[in-house]
């Protein structure tokens, strides 16, 4: 984060018109209810000033990392409601947002909360995804679909879903608990449709978690006979009822493109469960049934996937490569049908159309040289963040707004 701020100082000098605008502003940035509002009209400016821009441009004012709690309180009690500053907690080394919330002059009129920097990573990641994956979504999906048409898994899944649907599905899948009713299944279906529309693996996985929550809920409360062992059958039942074999493509998309730390978390767990369900459904209707849910091919593919992604995580750590870098390289290596030049062209096209020229040249530079300095990576982060986060915020895609 720090480096981004440093970079930003340079950027700030370049954008003098921004400084002029800020001259007649109060000393500290003001926000109401913790939510920083856009008050000035965007029209007439060549480049719209977003919340993020404003924060970045004014950060020397509100970013007071050296302040302690008492000094922060002292300063804020002299400022109007809604004024904030950011300091660093010396014991936990985390940044703290201090905000004047009420008019009285007691200590309780200033509210403090820790800033979750993870959130900024999330925002950055989303920005990255929209930059790289949006143009790549279609070719990737096509490649995956073609692959699964070829290996027969799509046909098998489609066929088994149709056969299982309706009567007997519960029994054949070993469901012993409550399951979502028709209306709830319809809601799950809608979630799956939404999932197919988004390009971001994070958004996809969040939708998947919502689906799993429906299933959990419908399974009913836990008692002696119902345990969480029953989750997989219930989930499989819902997947069959939804009858969307495309889910296979979605699952693989997530498995390939989610950041490794996500794969080890809750999202990864439920993604794994959906994958297991799909394997189970494919294995049913076979003769004999249940004899080894995983074909040797599936086992090999899993092994290959797992070792590849683990290696990638290690490499990322060792080379301190940014997630952006890994993701581009990953996208390039992802499938043979998406040739490197194709990726480069797509990314370049996208960026020159929608963003500044500087960004696209940086992207190309990143793609061509695998050893970009940390400084360049940070600059890259900054360029992406400043050009894309406002767009995302503006379109309301980022739910939590902590763009520090």
């Amino acid at each position, binding site marked *: 984060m720090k480096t981004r701020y440093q970079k930003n100082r340079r950027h700030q000098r370049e954008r003098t018109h921004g400084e002029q605008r800020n001259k007649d502003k109060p000393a500290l940035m003001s926000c109401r209810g913790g939510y920083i509002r856009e008050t000035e009209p965007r029209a007439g400016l060549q480049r719209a000033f977003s919340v993020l821009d404003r924060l970045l441009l004014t950060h020397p004012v509100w970013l007071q990392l050296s302040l302690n709690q008492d000094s922060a309180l002292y300063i804020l009690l002299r400022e109007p409601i809604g004024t904030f500053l950011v300091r660093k907690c010396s014991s936990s080394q985390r940044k703290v947002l201090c905000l004047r919330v009420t008019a009285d002059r007691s200590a309780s009129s200033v509210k403090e909360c820790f800033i979750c920097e993870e959130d900024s990573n999330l925002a950055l990641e989303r920005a990255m995804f929209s930059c790289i994956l949006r143009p790549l979504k279609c070719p990737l999906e096509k490649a995956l679909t073609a692959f699964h048409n070829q290996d027969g898994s799509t046909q098998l899944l489609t066929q088994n879903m149709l056969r299982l649907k309706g009567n007997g599905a519960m029994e054949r899948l070993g469901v012993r608990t409550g399951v979502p009713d028709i209306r709830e299944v319809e809601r799950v279906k809608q979630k799956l449709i939404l999932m197919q529309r988004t390009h971001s693996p994070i958004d996809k996985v969040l939708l998947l978690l919502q689906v799993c929550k429906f299933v959990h809920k419908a399974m009913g*409360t836990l008692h002696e006979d119902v345990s969480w*062992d029953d989750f997989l059958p219930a989930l499989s039942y819902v997947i069959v009822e939804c009858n969307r074999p495309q889910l296979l493509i979605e699952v693989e998309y997530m498995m390939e493109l989610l950041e490794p*730390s*996500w794969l080890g978390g809750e999202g990864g*767990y439920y993604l794994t469960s959906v994958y297991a369900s799909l394997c189970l459904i494919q294995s049913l209707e076979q003769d004999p049934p*249940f004899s080894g849910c995983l074909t040797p091919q599936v086992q090999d593919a899993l092994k290959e996937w*797992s070792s590849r992604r683990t290696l990638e995580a290690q490499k990322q*750590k060792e080379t301190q490569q940014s997630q952006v870098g890994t993701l581009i390289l990953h996208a390039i290596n992802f499938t043979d049908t998406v040739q490197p030049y194709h990726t480069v062209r797509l990314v370049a096209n996208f960026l020159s159309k929608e963003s500044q020229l500087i960004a696209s040249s940086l992207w190309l530079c990143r793609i061509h040289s695998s050893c970009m300095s940390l400084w360049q990576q940070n600059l890259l982060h900054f360029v992406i963040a400043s050009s894309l986060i406002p767009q995302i915020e503006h379109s309301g895609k980022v739910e939590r707004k902590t763009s520090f």
Partner: protein
Amino acid sequence: MAAAGAAGSGGRTYSFKVVLLGEGCVGKTSLVLRYCENKFNDKHITTLQASFLTKKLNITGKRVNLAIWDTAGQERFHALGPIYYRDSNGGILVYDITDEDSFQKVKNWVKELRKMLGNEICLCIVGNKIDLDKDRHVSVEEAESYAESVGAKHYHTSAKLNKGIEELFLDLCKRMMETAQAEERAKGNGASQSASSRRGVQIVDDEPQATPAGGCCSSG
């Protein structure tokens, strides 16, 4: 992730994946629920974290994040095991001391895990339901000698009485940390240790569900 197991070497944060295996009714879910939330047979599920549970620990000044993966216990789902246990740092294999058959199933799992994941994975064999000792069908000697023969540790627990569970997980964590440290040493001391640790911490801390006070800023 095996890689995440040793993550954050400089920042001293370990992230471990632990897989929970065992037959349907041996009480593995109760065991882990007791450990993570100190509940037994609670009827109230408020979060999704039901078959996936996390626990944060501090062991001799080192932070440890545990992600515990529950698996489907029905025999018919046995073949799906590899999907769940890949990249695990630890495995907890639970049997019911009153059920000889469930102990046999544990033996099958041990064989499979050793074959697929080698000796890297720390195994715990757990005899649950010791509150029903009068109905015991698996002898202590047999279970312990078997565990020793396969390089696993044996524990006796009761999820109902909350016995032996803390010890089990603490012990497992220590063993996984030793394994991770040995792995790090074997890899040689990376030149960019200090710099990579910064990123390592970042990566580890990235898991959103591991942040208990996640709402602090979104509301502020």
